[in-house]
């Protein structure tokens, strides 16, 4: 163990050596919560955004109209509440609220999943709704005009385009979640921040430990950002397309931007 005269890097080295596995486990938990929270939040967002973007006219039937209005109001309240309060407060209210009102002691990790998911869901609902609105209305009209139902037109035509359009925002939300899961340390989820705080507290070496912690966060978010960029490119498909072999145009060949022949 380094002593009082030891320098910065000696301490850093010491913490990496002694707490390395613990840091990695904390980082793993952080990634797991952020990933699950973003995916579940995205599913919530898709559902809520879909319902909020649905056309709703009185003449479609009074029962349906009223039901949709009520569901929409509830969803609107959900979005407003979760967007207007900090996640750190939501974590406290949900975790301790469940315990004192319903006498349910949520496992810490499960509570973390739930909180991040519904918080992300509230943000992504609005992003999905915006994504749906960003798709040219003509796309849906064309789908309806060949006989698709509203649901089919959404599933096959509108949502794939909406999701592609919101992919950057979705990636943003994932990156934010990786960092914001740190607030879950208030309900003792053993994610990266919690682990760091414990290690630092033991030796009163906050700068050294959190220097390591910030490196770990950076590596995680940077890697995720790159992966998402790659995914966006992949979803867009190649810039060039192959011309289908045809007897009418036998000798067509396309040259890609790099000069290579495309088959």
């Amino acid at each position: 163990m380094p002593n009082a005269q030891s320098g910065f890097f000696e301490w850093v080295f010491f913490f990496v050596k002694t707490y390395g596995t613990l840091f990695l486990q904390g980082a793993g938990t952080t990634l797991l919560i952020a990933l699950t929270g973003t995916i579940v939040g995205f599913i919530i967002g898709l559902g809520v955004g879909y319902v909020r973007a649905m056309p709703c006219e009185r003449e479609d039937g009074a029962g349906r109209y009223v039901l949709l209005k009520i569901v929409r109001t509830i969803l609107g309240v959900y979005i407003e509440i979760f967007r207007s309060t900090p996640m750190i407060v939501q974590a406290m209210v949900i975790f301790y609220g469940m315990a004192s009102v319903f006498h349910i002691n949520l496992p810490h990790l499960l509570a973390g999943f739930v909180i991040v998911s519904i918080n992300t869901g509230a943000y992504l609902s609005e992003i999905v709704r915006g994504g749906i609105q960003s798709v040219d209305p003509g796309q849906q009209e064309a789908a309806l005009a060949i006989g698709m139902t509203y649901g089919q037109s959404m599933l096959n035509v509108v949502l794939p385009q909406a999701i592609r359009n919101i992919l950057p925002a979705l990636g943003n939300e994932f990156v934010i979640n990786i960092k914001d899961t740190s607030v879950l340390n208030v309900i003792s989820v053993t994610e990266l921040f919690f682990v760091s705080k414990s290690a630092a507290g033991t030796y009163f070496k906050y700068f050294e430990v959190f220097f390591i912690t910030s490196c770990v966060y950076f590596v995680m978010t940077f890697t995720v950002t790159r992966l998402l960029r790659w995914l966006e490119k992949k979803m867009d498909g190649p810039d060039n397309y192959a011309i289908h072999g045809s007897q009418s145009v036998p000798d067509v060949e396309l040259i890609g931007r790099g000069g290579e022949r495309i088959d």
Partner: protein
Amino acid sequence: MIDNKAERIIEVRHLSKSFGDHEVLRDVDFSVRKGQVVSIIGSSGSGKSTLLRCMNLLEKPSGGEVLYHGKSIRGEGFNLQMYRAHVGMVFQQFNLFANMTALENCVVGQMKVLKRSRTEAENTAMEYLCKVGMDVYVKAKPRQLSGGQKQRVAIARALSMNPDVLLFDEPTSALDPEMVGEVLAVMKDLASSGLTMLVVTHEMGFARDVCDRVVFMDGGVIVESNTPEVIFTNPEQPRTREFLARILEN
């Protein structure tokens, strides 16, 4: 030649449509018979496109009815999806599904609406893509095609559903002048093959040479409906004469 004995496919009766206080269509009455090619002409804002959009319920009419083979399309138990599958629509802005290739554009409706198998749907799609001369571009996404090419794919998409009648909503208005020809050529070809067509257009040449009947609309009403010979050489109504004089001058 107008075959007055042929079965009426679509009948529009006393159709009206208002957007708020603004009346766009007033008591419009007309019908399309099997094998007819009818064009609707008139200045912008005369209600032509709204009429077409009311016919497949992309707009809800405010009054009157549309009959398909004698049945009201807003009646109880009328299958709107199958009706729309049988009444194709070609849009001014093409509206090709941006997330799909040219082939997928022509396949998806057949599979989802007509429940055809993929093989059958692809064969049908290829047949019509060949017909419009777009078979070599099956793998292209809409953003990789020119306006004229997009519109030809859009026509193939509509044809792939094997419609009874095809509605064209100003199919060449969004095209560069040099691309208008390739789309009109495809439409002429379709007309001569016996397809029933209803075409909202500003292409007077097409209305005159290809159509069986020309409907002139102004201010939300049908002013005159007659054969192209009468409309273009000796129209009965002064408003028709004015419109044609104005548009043919340019």
